[in-house]
């Protein structure tokens, strides 16, 4: 604060001599002086000149110092304009009256020059502090306003991403306070193509934006995969991998994920680090806790991530409750936490299952009472119901494809002109993985197709012997010969035949590959264990392990394999 700066000082006194003395003292200190002979003048000059400090006689004609002080303080608004009363009054009441009217200090007549100088200096310092405070207050208010606007926009984006699923289905109730969103709570729910509902409740560590931001990749991964029919462990592995990659160490997501099979009345539960959810069985009013058995998402690297789940068979009308720790950690005025015991108590006292959800919320709110309102609650309830009873504006719980069997056949032939240039593997794999049931087997299907096609083309059509591949040079030689023969080949074929069949419980894909070659003696081949030595000859062994059956026909130029799967969810 530059206290040597020249200030604008208003001096109001009706006694000419007193005023003159004051003016002289103040001017000598290097300040600019404005004079008034009464309160009215003082107020008028104040409006015109905006002085920094006002020296005001208490008793003046027209308008006294008290009224003038009130008006000046009023006009000054937020700005601090120190008013020092000049008075010959000595009684306590009068002095208090000066301060009550808005005065900041008083100076008794006769004036002491040193004290006046010190007071001006002191009040100027106070003015500086006050101005700094006002500027910072305004900046804070601006920042706060902007933060609120940004949060409103962020919440909207968040809602669009996170709540695009089936949270408004007829068997779901959820409560997610807005503060909970910015504390990193997230609820997502989607329907798989087979009609199962998947629900994930997550709670990111930490608070505010860093915690909330992780919810975005979680939600987009969740919906992307659930809609495509990926299994719960696929979805969990992928979310874990993504969070592990993008989140800094120490930030992770406690989560419970449940896969609801309404057709079989069965749920699969994975809980990593969240407080136990509860199954409420309405027939015997028993409660089964769904306790955490895993580490949270985003902690373990992909290879050590555990995706094993717990299975529960339910009855229609049973309810599952999930919550983040906001409920458990809600505090009453005495500072006690709500805790799991009180939750269990509400469930034990419940008479009407349909209102348990409300009873829990009410109980928590009553418990908090006048305590600190954290407003950080997330809770979700899902009712087990028959698929045909469930309703949602945009989703179907009864999937046509899943209800009705699907059967098709496909015949495919690669002609000699195309052996060299055409790669049927990607082509056929794309067709196969259009079937939702086959999608999760693309790796195995690729290997099966690749082995059968390579064998048919290389050993069958081209007549190459795998024996060449015995040495590193032979390995290269084999593929050099393959290349050469492909350039020359003008006759031959590879027929590929698929028969697909699936129903609600699973299905099978039969693959038959026939080539124009001479075949081979397959009587010695079947049942031979898979060797780990030699650079070649393990292809068909892998196929045997991946498929239910492998059979050769004819002269050995025809092979039929059956790939089968079971829908257990």
């Amino acid at each position: 604060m530059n206290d040597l700066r020249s200030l604008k000082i208003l001096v109001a006194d009706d006694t000419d001599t007193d005023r003159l003395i004051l003016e002289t003292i103040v001017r000598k200190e290097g300040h600019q002086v404005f004079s008034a002979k009464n309160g009215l003048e003082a107020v008028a000059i104040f409006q015109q000149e905006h002085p920094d400090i006002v020296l005001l006689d208490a008793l003046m004609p027209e308008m006294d110092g008290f009224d003038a002080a009130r008006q000046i303080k009023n006009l000054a608004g937020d700005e601090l304009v120190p008013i020092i009363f000049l008075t010959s009054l000595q009684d306590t009441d009068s002095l208090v009256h000066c301060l009550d009217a808005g005065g900041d200090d008083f100076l008794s007549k006769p004036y002491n020059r040193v004290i006046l100088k010190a007071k001006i200096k002191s009040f100027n310092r106070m003015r500086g502090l006050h101005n700094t405070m006002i500027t910072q207050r305004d900046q804070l208010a601006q920042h706060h306003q902007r933060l609120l606007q940004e949060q409103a926009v962020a919440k909207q984006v968040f809602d669009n991403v996170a709540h695009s699923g089936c949270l408004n289905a007829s068997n779901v109730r959820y409560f997610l306070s807005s503060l909970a969103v910015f504390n990193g709570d997230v609820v997502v729910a989607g329907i798989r193509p087979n009609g199962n509902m998947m629900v994930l409740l997550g709670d990111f560590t930490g608070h505010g934006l860093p915690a909330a931001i992780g919810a975005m990749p979680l939600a987009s991964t969740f919906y992307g995969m659930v809609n495509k029919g990926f299994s719960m462990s696929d979805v969990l592995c992928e979310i874990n991998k993504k969070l592990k990659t993008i989140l800094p160490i120490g930030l992770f997501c406690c989560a419970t994920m449940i896969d609801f099979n309404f057709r079989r009345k069965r749920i699969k539960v994975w809980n990593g680090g969240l407080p136990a959810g509860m199954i409420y069985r309405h027939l015997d009013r028993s409660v089964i806790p769904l306790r955490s058995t895993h580490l949270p998402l985003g902690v373990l690297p992909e290879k050590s991530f555990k995706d094993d789940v717990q299975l529960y068979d339910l009855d229609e009308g049973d309810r599952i409750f999930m919550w983040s720790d906001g409920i458990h950690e809600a505090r009453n005025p005495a500072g006690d936490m709500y805790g799991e015991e009180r939750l269990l108590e509400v469930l034990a006292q419940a008479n009407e299952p349909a209102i348990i959800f409300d009873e829990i919320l009410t109980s928590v709110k009553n418990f908090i009472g006048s305590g600190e309102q954290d407003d950080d609650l997330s809770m979700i309830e899902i009712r087990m119901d028959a698929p045909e009873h469930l309703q949602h504006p945009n989703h179907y719980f009864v999937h046509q494809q899943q209800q009705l069997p699907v059967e098709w056949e496909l015949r495919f032939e690669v002609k000699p002109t195309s052996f060299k240039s055409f790669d049927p593997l990607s082509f056929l794999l794309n067709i196969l993985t259009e079937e939702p049931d086959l999608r999760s087997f693309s790796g195995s299907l690729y290997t099966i197709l690749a082995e059968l096609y390579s064998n048919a083309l290389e050993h069958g059509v081209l007549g190459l012997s795998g024996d060449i591949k015995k040495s590193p040079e032979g390995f290269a030689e084999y593929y050099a010969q393959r290349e050469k023969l492909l350039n020359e080949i003008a006759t031959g074929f590879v027929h590929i035949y698929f028969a697909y069949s699936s129903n609600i419980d699973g299905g099978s894909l039969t693959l038959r590959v026939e080539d124009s070659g001479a075949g081979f003696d397959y009587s010695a081949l079947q049942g031979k264990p898979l060797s780990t030595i030699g650079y070649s000859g393990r292809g068909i062994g892998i196929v045997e392990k991946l498929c239910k059956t492998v059979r050769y026909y004819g002269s050995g130029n025809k092979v039929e394999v059956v790939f089968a799967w079971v829908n257990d969810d």
Partner: protein
Amino acid sequence: MAITSTVSADGNQVTIYIQGRFDFSSHQEFRNAYEKLTKAPSRFRVDLQGTSYLDSSALGMLLLLRDHAGGERADIDIVNCSQDVKKILLISNFEQLFSIQ
């Protein structure tokens, strides 16, 4: 390019990356990645992070690498396998020959 490789500063370790399908079509590139080095590395890493599928010819190529690297004494890590790729490696008992992560 389906196959890329990097060599550590001291030349002792080579890492081979395979993108997309790992099959015979890349066998020359795969061999170049470890055969054409000025100093023979003692440690090998095969990074399958970007590998979508593999077939038995890829397994043959891994065995070629193993023999080149000293057979039983070879120090080879196969890392970042997807579930699909790992399944095929395990079916073939390759965990007995390589360190698979």
